[in-house]
């Protein structure tokens, strides 16, 4: 009995995937879109000498956190980035960064408007919420299979899997942030004759800003956490080094590359935090 159900679900999904594969045109368009965004990022990073990159990171930290204790973080950033450079993982690091930034850009472009729509309509919330739950709880590996089926191997399927995995926090927190805006402020806007757009731009988004930014940085972290998994389908980057090390049973190499990921994660996290706090 259970076997038949599992078997038919499997069959059903497989035939659904088969059915989807007739839309190669659409997938090619998506694939082209994603890879051109990724190419732009990678082109910038390749153009940027490592020292200039380090200076930019330190400068951003220095100026956006002016009035707080920041020398610890500055030191960390300097040493961390030097470490990545010295051990020869610089290009891998920028490839990882490209994957993360590309995925997140798309997550925000889709996720924030979707969250707004969800906040404005209970019906949309009712439909979208379980889908988000599903996206977040399904093991990330599973996304690799259709991603490979439709987009082959390389950066694009990695980005697709990251986008699916990293999308929920942005949507959720945008929805939450807008719904949490105090009713009397929304009423005030309505009672003075705000139209929907004015209400959104002048009242709801500014007041939801810090909640939305929290979702944005969570998505960033989730996208970063996909790098090792994405490397299994040929997305290049620091993850690739970890994946190879695991394959060769080389704990030292794995740890070296893993440490680079940790450093990158901390820097991204702190920098997105400073964006949040900026008044």
């Amino acid at each position, binding site marked *: 009995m259970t076997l038949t159900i599992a078997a038919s679900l499997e069959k059903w999904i497989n035939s659904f995937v088969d059915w989807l594969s007739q839309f190669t045109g659409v997938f090619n368009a998506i694939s082209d879109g994603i890879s051109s965004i990724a190419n732009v990022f990678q082109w910038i990073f390749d153009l940027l000498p490592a020292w200039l990159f380090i200076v930019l990171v330190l400068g951003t930290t220095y100026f956006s956190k002016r009035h707080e204790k920041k020398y610890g973080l500055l030191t960390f950033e300097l040493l961390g980035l030097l470490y990545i450079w010295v051990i020869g993982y610089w290009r891998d690091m920028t490839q990882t960064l490209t994957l993360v930034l590309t995925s997140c850009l798309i997550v925000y472009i889709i996720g924030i408007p979707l969250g707004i729509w969800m906040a404005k309509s209970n019906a949309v919330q009712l439909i979208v919420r379980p889908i988000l739950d599903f996206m977040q709880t399904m093991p990330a590996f599973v996304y690799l299979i259709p991603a490979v089926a439709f987009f082959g191997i390389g950066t694009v399927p990695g980005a697709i899997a990251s986008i699916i995995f990293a999308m929920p926090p942005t949507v959720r927190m945008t929805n939450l942030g807008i719904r949490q805006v*105090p009713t*009397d*402020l929304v*009423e*005030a*806007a*309505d*009672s*003075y*004759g*705000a*139209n929907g757009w*004015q209400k959104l731009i*002048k*009242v709801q988004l*500014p*007041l939801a800003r810090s909640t939305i930014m929290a979702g944005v940085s969570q998505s960033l972290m989730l996208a970063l956490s996909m790098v090792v998994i994405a490397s299994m389908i040929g997305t290049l980057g620091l993850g690739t080094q970890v994946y190879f090390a695991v394959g060769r049973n080389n704990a030292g190499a794995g740890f070296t590359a893993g440490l680079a990921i940790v450093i990158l994660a901390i820097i991204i996290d702190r920098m997105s935090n400073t964006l949040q706090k900026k008044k």
Partner: protein
Amino acid sequence: MSVEIEVKNVTKIFGKQISKAKKMASQEASKEEILAKTGATVGVDQASFKINRGELFVIMGLSGSGKSTMLRMINQLIPVTSGQILVEGKDLTKLGKKELIEFRREKMSMVFQNFALLPHYTILDNVAFGLELQGIEKNERLKKAKKALKIVGLSGYGTQYPSQLSGGMQQRVGLARALASNTQILLMDEAFSALDPLNRKEMQDELLKIQSDLNKTIVFISHDLNEALKLGDHIMIMRNGMVVQTGTPEEILTNPANDYVEKFIEEVDRTRVLTASNVMINPATVNIEKSGPRTALREMQANNTSSIYVVDNQRHFIGWADASDVSNLIRKGSKDLKSVLMRNVPVAHPDTPLNELLSEVSTTQIPLAVLDEDSHLKGIIVRGAVLAALAGDEVE
């Protein structure tokens, strides 16, 4: 007086099974019964009333009686379930989305209990918010906002943020925002409830001044009978979504429609504690045994009154004379004040409780004469003083 707002048989039901609940409500079922049978909450139940242009109309009632719901239907923040809301003859319930936005911008402003100022806007930008939504150019709207801020006495605070101001000041900003839009109608939902007593009294006085200066039509929700008595030209009392009584403060105090209103009024214990002697003032008097009409007229001019109380050497009350009668007398060359005296004026004893004076004060144009056992004139009571005292103003 022209009617500004007319509410016709308006019902609001929240929840599901609305048509069933509405039918029950029209068959006089109680709010509890309807909730139990249908799960729907009756917010407002067949309310009808009129508000005149330029008056301050107070809605009162216990928590949950439907005051806020009623107020929010007047600017359609809450759509009605049935009935009509006519403002200047136009039925708001029939307006399309665009027309409604237009209408809100031009006709009504709202002041909120918890101020509802935008935390990311400066005070000046908050005041200009209504104008900004109307698309008025920046310099012009800031000019208007400055003017409104001046009216509420906060000129110097334009560049600060709401969180930097005290509650009382924030509510002034809320009021300034409403004034800046220059709409005829102000809707105020317990606008002063969050303020401490001192600030509250100041704001009440300010509101009365604004209303008399600018002739706004104000709908004001209050929990507090004293506040309602002080502010209201008319007071409407609601219970369980229904209108129980609408009338002038005097009518409500002297002639409560039912037990509920009476109980509500009993809260004003002051009527039992305060007596005539607490609210009487010194009248302009003239001694008939010493002086004639000319002195009487001069005395009235000096005191800036249009009537005078006439007494004898021992300050026994003799009568009351009106300025126009006295000047007629002078023109005729007569010296005898007695011929124009009115002896039959309403009187009270210094110990008469205020509530017993209310009906008397409200039916006569002549101030009450307060006389002791031996008919000595102790003072007079003007109509405003009684209401002011009931409303909790300082009495010496």
